[in-house]
């Protein structure tokens, strides 16, 4: 197991190096630089002159070839210096990312927990009730939900729950008077603000996961050992939970592994609609502004999480399936 772990980590590091190298090459070859923004939009009398651009390019090291800049960036990363955002007035990249982590995790963890809490019982229930009218109705509803784009649902929820009924806040993460609230008040305030984004974030994957579990369970409940268990008089609940569900865990664990990076990656469109200060918006804005250090910092975070997720999933196989061992 130990040697397997070492091999996997070594491979992960190599992959990481390759990912960052390729991403750096790509973003540096995209037309535009962090200095491409047009101040003339603010005031037509203010224009960056060619000499000024040259001066700033030199100052920010943008005049160096991309591969030199990459190794400079990588060297700094080893020293725990992840660089600074040119377009955000030299703010440290770690601070910019750290500012967005809580908001992103709040959405993604709530959504993930809700998804699993609801989709597993729903998937099992669908298996038990397979073929009944109510199960077909629920299935149809879930398919409909799955096909409904989240930005449409977001707009609809905003119009109904925030504008027409006034039950929930329309956008943002906190109220204007947030600072004056008690701890309970603050929690409640964030809860209310998060309700609509979490709903939009969750319903699609809820539909997908419950269908996924149901499909796998349908396969498993037809196996001989399930028939044997039933013939031996094992109660139906135990057959489903202990005998059948455990065997559907392997593909579910793979899915969970792949979910890890999405915990921090955020969702650009939903974050924009709800003005949620998450990682998706930061990434999107950084790419648009060619804010190289921020893009690279975020790429590194997502890559690390993806690789960790895969490793975790592989290790969990051994936990859920005793036949799997690593050497």
């Amino acid at each position: 197991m130990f040697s397997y772990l070492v091999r996997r980590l070594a491979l992960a590091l190599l992959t990481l190096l390759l990912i960052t190298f390729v991403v750096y090459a790509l973003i540096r070859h995209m037309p535009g630089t962090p200095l491409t923004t047009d101040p003339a939009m603010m005031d037509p009398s203010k224009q960056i002159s060619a000499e000024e651009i040259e001066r700033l390019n030199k100052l920010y090291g943008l005049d160096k070839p991309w591969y030199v800049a990459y190794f400079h960036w990588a060297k700094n990363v080893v020293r725990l210096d992840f660089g600074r955002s040119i377009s955000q007035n030299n703010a440290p990249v770690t601070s910019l990312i750290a500012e967005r982590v809580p908001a992103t995790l709040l959405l993604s963890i709530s959504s993930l927990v809700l998804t699993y809490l609801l989709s597993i019982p729903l998937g099992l229930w669908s298996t038990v009730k397979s073929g009944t009218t109510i199960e077909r109705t629920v299935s149809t509803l879930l398919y409909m939900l799955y096909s409904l784009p989240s930005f449409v649902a977001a707009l609809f929820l905003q119009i109904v729950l925030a504008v027409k009924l006034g039950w929930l806040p329309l956008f943002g993460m906190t109220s204007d008077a947030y600072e004056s609230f008690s701890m309970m008040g603050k929690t409640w305030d964030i809860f209310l603000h998060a309700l609509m984004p979490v709903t939009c974030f969750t319903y699609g994957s809820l539909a997908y996961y419950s269908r996924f579990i149901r499909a796998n369970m349908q396969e498993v409940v037809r196996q001989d050992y399930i028939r044997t268990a039933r013939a031996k008089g094992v109660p139906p609940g135990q057959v489903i939970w202990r005998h059948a569900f455990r065997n559907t865990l392997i593909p579910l664990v793979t899915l969970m592994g792949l979910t890890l990076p999405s915990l921090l990656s955020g969702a650009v469109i939903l974050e924009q609609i709800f003005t949620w200060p998450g990682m998706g918006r930061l990434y999107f804005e950084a790419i648009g502004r060619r804010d190289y250090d921020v893009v690279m910092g975020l790429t590194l975070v997502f890559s690390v999480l993806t690789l960790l997720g895969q490793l975790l999933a592989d290790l969990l196989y051994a936990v859920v399936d005793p036949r799997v061992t690593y050497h």
Partner: protein
Amino acid sequence: MKARCWHKSVSKLVAITLLLSLPIGGGCSSEKSAPPPEAGGEAAKSEGSEQPFELGNMLEPFDVPSLEELIAEHEWVDRPVVDSMKLMRDFQSSLPSPELSAEEALDLRNKSPEDNAKILDALGRLASEDGEGVDYEAELVMMTNGDLKSTNPLLTSSVTESDYHSLSAFGLFSFDKEFNKFASADSVVSWQTSKDRLIDKIVMRDDLTWSDGTPITAHDVAFSFQVLMTEEIPIPAMRQGTDKIRWIEAYDDHTLVYFHREALSTNDGNMNFYILPEHKYAETIPGDPTMARSKGHSALEDKPVVGGSYTLVKRTRGQEFVMQRRESAYMRNGKQVRDKPYFKTVRFKAIEDRNTALLALKADQIHAMELTAEQWNGQSDGDDFYRDNTKTSGLAWISFHFCWNTKTPYFEDKRVRQAMSYAMDYEELLDTILYGIYSPCQGTFHPTSKMFPKDGPEPFQQDLDIAEQLLDAAGWEDSDGDGIRDREVNGRTIPFEFTLIVANIEDRIKIATLMKECLESIGVECNVKPTEFTVLTQMQRDRKFQAAFAGWGTGADPDTTANLWVTNEGRNYGSYSNLRVDALFEQARHEFDEEKRMALYGEIHNLLWEDQPYTWLFVRNSFYGFNKRLRGYNFSPRGPFSYGPGIGSIYMPTLTP
């Protein structure tokens, strides 16, 4: 405070997570990152340079004469020192009483230009001079479409920062809604210009203070100029114009003299830049010329010392920033010395999604927003909008066009460019795509401006016959009968097929596609390429495009268009060149007679219209939704906020029980 610490912990956590993933050895490195540069130090050197830091190193040495010599040797002309609120009040007092009361105007739905005029007339009236009936405890909630990147006024580069600085920054000059420039009576006692126009002398008020209580003096202005003119300091945009000033000297705390390189009619605009507090930056800049990286500068970034009416009290990246009225801006020793700003707080909420912004306006969560044509025309007519809001529109000098790259074989001939303008279906563009609410564009200057010539052109009308004749005359004919015109260029026959780049925005793509369809009927192939905005900007800046759809707002002086049209200038993306136009811009800079100067711009306008470096398409007016509680808004060609008094005249009346 706790949230801050938490961020720092997360920041460390992010760093540690990343470290764990790094090549072996990296995590064990004993090397520490260099500590951030700190303020001061006698041997301070600029970053990345072995040269000692020298403030104002872009300036040539200048022998400053004594003030007595200056006063004695020059003849001085008094220049306007104006209270912009008083100016607006005087203007409004010359108008007849509004046809409708405010209540009646709020009940009216804006369905015609007449309705619009009535609403604007009734709700645009200023509050009474003594402020009676104004709710001074009110909060104004505005939307902004991006983050506040920097609170340092000299590092400003975006519209959001411009919004922020309009309330927080200190400056000496302003302009009214007709773009007449003046020194602001809020900060200046007198302004004189030498008769040879080479020197300006300002006497500042002695009751000005920064938000930390330190007096604002002439030395702050001279210092800020030196900062702007220092090579190592990364000033994104504010240097332009200011670099035409030779020297600024503070003779005492209040007397300031600007020495110009040349006598130019644009010198007034060049003197208009934001001011930094010298007592905060003089010591810190040499150690950190970026004005951002050191601890001292980071602290100033978070808690800026401001000279304007409002100070920053909250800033949450990605969400909002809040500004609070500061008493020391208008009170001195218990006495009111300036107008008290109408709002206690102004909150800017970052909303990037236009649909969310409109819903926020309808839900009374923001108080004003600019509406798109689609929102004005279909989404703001119902009870849900009019329950808390009204809407008005005003003239704005924002125009959109196709820019032709004159260095390509397709558009080097002005007859081809004229043909493009004749080919466009303006009726379809204005009436269908733009809902009939925008006006046709008649060239680089707006027809209502002083620069528009008396014999100004009429807008183009689609005429495909003329377009075809012009293309024939320019040598673009369908020689091989494939339906696409062609011409021999450098010994090779090339088809008239070009790419039109356009920002990835729905209505812009529709407009470009309309042009494509129009050109198809005259044998020209136009490929529409929706392009990410940064790529679009870079391609234009590098002149690596054939045609582009774009738009421009207006500066407060016609000379700001020089960088659009003068040969090799920065915004002259189409590489247009007409020596007569170049000469006229130069001549206008040296012309001080207003009428003659405007006539020169009129001539430029006609020359450009003849050359058609752009196909001018339409003028986008300002369309705004305002909360019903707001009053005192008026439009300038730059919208309702960016002029004097602009946002400063907007108020909320006290609620009547």
